[in-house]
């Protein structure tokens, strides 16, 4: 079956751009646009959202009629463990304190690789925590609580 050639990557890219433009455009609706003499807070964003939408349409239309390259593998495991690491750190650094939060963050991040075994991961997380605490908390004197209120009994 002969299908028309189409660059899927660019098609998705164009759609995403249009979606982003629509989102920003929707967000500007509440802002005052003003005149070109006294531009309101909405003037410039409105202009840009419109431009972004047009570019999205352009990229989308260009994707038809030519062959795209494959995108290659997607790092699902990486996404699953790398991205939550800073979020977890953010959620716990005040409550648990710097030391336990960092330890758990490194442990989570280390799981992103299939090659990481449990014991090396533990050793690595302990080392990272000790060294970072020495450098950032004691050395540079950053104002972090080393152990937070959640751990007070």
């Amino acid at each position, binding site marked *: 079956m002969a299908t028309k050639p189409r660059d899927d990557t660019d098609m998705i890219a164009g759609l995403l751009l249009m979606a982003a433009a629509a989102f920003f455009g929707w967000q500007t609706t509440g802002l005052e646009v003003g005149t070109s003499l006294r531009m309101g807070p909405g003037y410039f964003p409105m202009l*840009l959202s419109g431009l972004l939408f047009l570019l999205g349409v352009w990229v989308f239309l260009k994707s038809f009629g030519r062959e795209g390259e494959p*995108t290659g593998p997607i790092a699902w495991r990486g996404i699953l463990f790398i991205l939550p690491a*800073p979020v977890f750190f953010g959620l716990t650094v005040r409550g648990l304190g710097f030391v336990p939060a960092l330890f758990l963050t490194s442990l989570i991040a280390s799981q992103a*690789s299939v090659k990481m075994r449990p014991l090396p991961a533990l050793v690595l*997380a302990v080392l990272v925590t000790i060294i970072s605490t020495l450098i950032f908390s004691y050395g540079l004197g950053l104002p972090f609580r080393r152990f937070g209120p959640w751990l007070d009994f």
Partner: protein
Amino acid sequence: MDLLSNLGMGFSVASSFANLGFCLIGVLLGTLIGVLPGIGATATIAMLLPITFQLEPVSSLIMLAGIYYGAQYGGSTTAILINMPGESSSAVTAIDGYQMARKGRAGTALATAALGSFFAGSVATFLVAIFAPPLTAIALEFGAAEYFSLMVLGLVMSVALAHGTVPKALAMVVLGLLLGIVGTDVYTGTPRFTLGITQFSDGLNFVALAVGVFGIAEILRNLEDEHERQVMTRNINSLFPNRDELRQIIGPVLRGTGVGSILGILPGGGAILASFASYTIEKKLSKHPEEFGHGAIAGVAGPESANNAGAQTSFIPLLTLGIPANPVMALMIGAMIIQGIVPGPSVVTDQPELFWGIIASMWIGNLMLVVLNLPLIGLWVKLLTVPYFVLFPIIMAMCSIGVYSVNSNVYDLFAVAFFGLLGYVLSKLRFEPAPLLLGFVLGPLLEENLRRAMILSRGDPTTFVTRPISAGLLVLALAVLVLVFLPQIRRRREEVFTESEG
């Protein structure tokens, strides 16, 4: 003579014991992270940026400059040893450098890269010292309209030099501008695009964006395919080029320095263009063009010099106009703003010690690289054999601490995760992130100058074309856009970038 006394002052600032120390740490850390495969100068600086915030402004910028040179050098090392350039500017080095390494001349290639870079860096530092002050005088004449037009030119140039198709690069600029608008409107105090989250009322954190889009997206890309790397470590020959090789590299180094110095000043990423241009020139001039691609020493010496010279002179638009020429300079601007310095022409007059201190530290940083890194090459090579799965948890921990330490704002850490994902998705869809970062940094400035210019001209948009400097800059920007869309040039441009990816 003014220049000498100014340089003298710069050196006395830069060579204080503490600043030398920070420069050294910067160079070492920069090389350390830059040597990691696939991580280029931009990602390295984004990750290490937060470490410098606790320092005084001068020391912090000196350390950052050190990180920059270190990262670039580290990038060349990986390009030569494992054929994995971290950045497009060292992609050219990989072509012949890796071939030299395969023929057992890795040491010579590394030393050539270092020596060429050092020479080019020294010359270009002098050029910065000579040309920056008079340009500042011109820059002081700039009004809102000129600034607006100049930034438009910079953004257009960054589009022209980005990988991928032109509409996609343009879209990245616009998306960056929109992200830069997030926060409180300076004129009316209205919150924009904050989604009701008060923590974003000061705007999205620049460090979070840079670390996410460049650092974390890079890690995810490396995790896609965890295959073994082949490191050319078994036979690293003696480092120093012999007399015959030295004679061969003099010409390319000189020409590379010249090409790089001129192209580096161009806004939008001239250093990348410089290494390509130098490679092409050397290939044309060579008596043995067939050697290129099979380990020609001139193919390492020329581009590396051009690259470094360009990297150096790209400080000129930053220091005189406050306009970043490439993503790295955008990071520098971010760092300066966080330190409370407004980049632009007033820096020279208001803070001469900072200005000349940075210039002097450029040279010192380059010297340190040569002195330290040639003997330390063995160590960097060992580092290449450290498996990646040990490195990235460390990097993630450092990123988390670093981003949090900027403002102690938990939302910045959520932003890192978001921008990490965004950066990864964008790279999967073959968008280039560099124009996005430039747009993000320039967004607020661009809008402010546009609005100011319109108020000053009483709502007359012709102000941009009736003021001669502004008109000239816009014509230039238009010319670049037209050039990019001309069929022959477009084809040529795509060829160049495909070559670099190969």
